[in-house]
């Protein structure tokens, strides 16, 4: 029994360390909070360690490592100051309060065992263990519901086929209650409603299924036929109705506060390049997390661009330029994101969006305080279906021989429901300037100007050719058909992004962006 809490504790420590290791090996600079926490963990003398952890808690009240700090104080007190019961308990409570949900059941157990092993505060240990057990039971009950939903769904669909409508309704509604995300259940309920002559309700269930991203093509056809029938033979308004449905069913999971620049705020615009896939379930947390950052920061604070890839499913927003940038970064899987050229990977489900945001946002904030290493002036003018972009680089601080200027064309919002359910895709990269999308060599420290013309017709044609060829070749050996090919570009919805990057280290020196207007526009950073 004695060894177990230690093992759990080690695991928790490993997890914290793993998070730290990620930061180190994935290159972004260690954020001030993580550095402070890391330094505090190295202190051996108990009082000084507690003091450093308490200072860390005061200095970084929003840090992800907050619960770990309370846990360390708790452990240190239990070992060295077992008489300070109130303080021990206060730190146990704080650790539990600040821990992410998935850690809580383990924490209850760990804290209870620490007290038990020290032979102190057995009543409190009992309470912690009891609460941990209750939390675990709740978690298991939730899992059981999710598993049962699949069986209710199957039964309901069997009854539906057998024409036993009452039984079908009972089972399908039970499945829907236990797991509202099951598209097969929503379609089953729509079909049931049709059999019960309730077309309005059927439309509603079909619409729920349509925004899930997992609706089979045949059901989509039935849905459209029904919608058209109820709408004087027209599909007008269908997408707007689905937009509203999506926004209602899937509210943004992150609470965003606008960024208040700190005293250390520099002149840098942070560039976040996100590699994602519309059929990638764990990309959801990253996509929505960066969405939230676009809301938190102004355009001259953070620029986010999204490169779509055929990972793990075919993605109709993929094009040769996005694939070239993925190759440049050596992207092995999605989601992968580069903050100022430094890559990290990993996202999660919609439920993990807040923790993703809380993990990545401090890195962005730290970068906002790092001085830019170049100045950029970007002009863009639209003439018919072409956009002439002109970028001037000045005041380059780096002596690297491998500097490049990249100019990117992005569409600000594309509506497409892929397998992961995300309906609105922001800042979708449509093209990257230069030969083989490789940008232009920056050879002077000052006043070097680059021009590039984006021909929307040619870019669209190139995207279509890519999608046609990919569809013809099959997705890594598997035949498929795109439900939609998003090769058409909306000329009223475009942004140009420019950034200077050291090709070798991949570090981004500065970036800027500009919304394309039909008249001449200018932006300077």
């Amino acid at each position, binding site marked *: 029994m004695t060894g177990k809490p230690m093992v759990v504790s080690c695991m928790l420590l490993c997890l914290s360390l793993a998070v730290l290791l990620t930061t180190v090996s994935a290159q972004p600079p260690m954020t001030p909070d993580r550095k402070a926490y890391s330094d505090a963990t190295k202190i051996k003398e108990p009082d000084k360690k507690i003091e450093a952890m308490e200072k860390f808690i005061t200095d970084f009240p929003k840090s992800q490592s907050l619960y770990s700090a309370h846990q360390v104080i708790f452990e240190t007190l239990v070992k060295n100051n077992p008489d300070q019961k109130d303080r021990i308990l206060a730190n146990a409570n704080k650790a539990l309060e600040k821990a992410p949900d998935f850690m809580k059941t383990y924490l209850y157990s760990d804290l209870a065992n620490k007290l038990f092993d020290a032979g102190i505060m057995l009543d409190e240990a009992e309470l912690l263990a009891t609460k941990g057990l209750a939390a675990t039971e709740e978690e298991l009950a939730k899992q059981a519901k999710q598993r049962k939903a699949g069986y209710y769904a199957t039964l309901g669909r069997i009854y539906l086929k057998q024409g036993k409508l009452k039984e079908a309704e009972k089972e399908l509604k039970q499945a829907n209650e236990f797991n509202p995300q099951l598209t097969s259940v929503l379609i089953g309920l729509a079909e049931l409603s049709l059999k019960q002559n309730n077309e309005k309700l059927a439309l509603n269930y079909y619409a729920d299924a349509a925004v899930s991203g997992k609706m089979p093509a045949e059901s989509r056809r039935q849905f459209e036929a029904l919608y058209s029938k109820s709408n004087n033979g027209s599909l007008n308004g269908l997408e707007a109705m689905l937009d509203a449905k999506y926004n209602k069913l899937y509210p943004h999971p992150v609470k965003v506060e606008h960024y208040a620049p700190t005293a250390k705020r520099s002149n840098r615009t942070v560039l976040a390049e996100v590699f994602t896939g519309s059929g990638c379930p764990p990309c959801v947390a990253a996509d929505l997390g960066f969405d939230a950052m676009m809301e938190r920061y102004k355009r001259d604070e953070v620029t986010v661009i999204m490169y779509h890839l055929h*990972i793990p499913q075919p993605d109709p927003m993929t094009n040769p330029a996005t694939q070239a940038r993925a190759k440049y970064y050596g992207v092995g899987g999605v*989601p992968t994101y580069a903050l100022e050229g430094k890559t990290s990977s990993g996202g*999660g489900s919609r439920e993990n969006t807040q923790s993703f945001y809380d993990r990545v946002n401090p890195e962005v904030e730290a970068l906002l305080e790092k001085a830019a290493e170049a100045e950029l002036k970007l002009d863009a003018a639209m003439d018919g279906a072409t956009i002439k972009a002109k970028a001037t680089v000045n005041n380059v601080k780096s002596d690297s021989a491998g500097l490049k200027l990249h100019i990117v064309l992005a569409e600000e919002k594309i509506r497409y429901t892929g397998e992961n359910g995300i309906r609105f895709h922001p800042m979708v990269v449509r093209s990257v300037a230069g030969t083989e999308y490789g940008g232009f060599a920056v050879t002077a420290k000052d006043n070097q100007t680059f021009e590039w013309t984006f021909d929307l017709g040619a870019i669209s044609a190139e995207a279509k050719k890519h999608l046609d060829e990919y569809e013809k070749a099959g997705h890594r050996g*598997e035949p498929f058909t795109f439900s939609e090919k998003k090769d058409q570009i909306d000329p009223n919805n475009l942004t140009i992004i420019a950034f200077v990057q050291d090709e070798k280290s991949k570090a981004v020196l500065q970036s800027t962006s500009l919304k394309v207007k039909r008249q001449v526009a200018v932006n300077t950073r």
Partner: protein
Amino acid sequence: MKLLFQFAQAAALSAALAVCALAQEGTQLNPIKWSLKADLPAKALRGGDKFTVQLTAEIEEGWHLYSTEEMPQGPKPTRIAFAPNQPFELQEIESPAPQKEFDQNFGIETEFYVESVTFTLPAKVKPDAPAGAHKLAVQVRFQTCTESLCLPPKLIKLEVEVPVRDQVGIRFRTPESQKRTPAVTARLALFAQNRIIPPINRPRQAGTIFG
């Protein structure tokens, strides 16, 4: 309580490993290693004979190899097939029972394997299979994800050598000129054992197998 601890340890470990895996960006991840082994009888195979092939996947911690069953709304299943135009037929694949767990990413219960899995591929030599040391090629298409990362699906081909001998009983009985000599019989025995066959000291005759 013990179970709770084990679960906690496993979950914490898998979370830690998943996070560690994230640090390896920029390199082409290859968390699933495949191998192929043929279980061949001591006597060499000939047309119509059955044998089995073992296809094994070693799966790194934190990664899921999805089962061979279709999962509506879920990940693409692992697909296993013999490459076309081979003198072998694949019979029904024997797959061990996969783990079933609710996957928050897909929003459904998915079937997957962790650590390692061996698929048994019962095979049959086609009746018209020519004699020779054939390479049996198995194609696998699979998708793999962790809780936080998905890799591009892969289509791989693995090969294993499967020697096939000729339909001795039929071809060597006729015509009269091709009746087995002791030397031919000895060579056939060696061939059956997959051993190197020494040359035979007799003039080449049309219609014979060796020589």
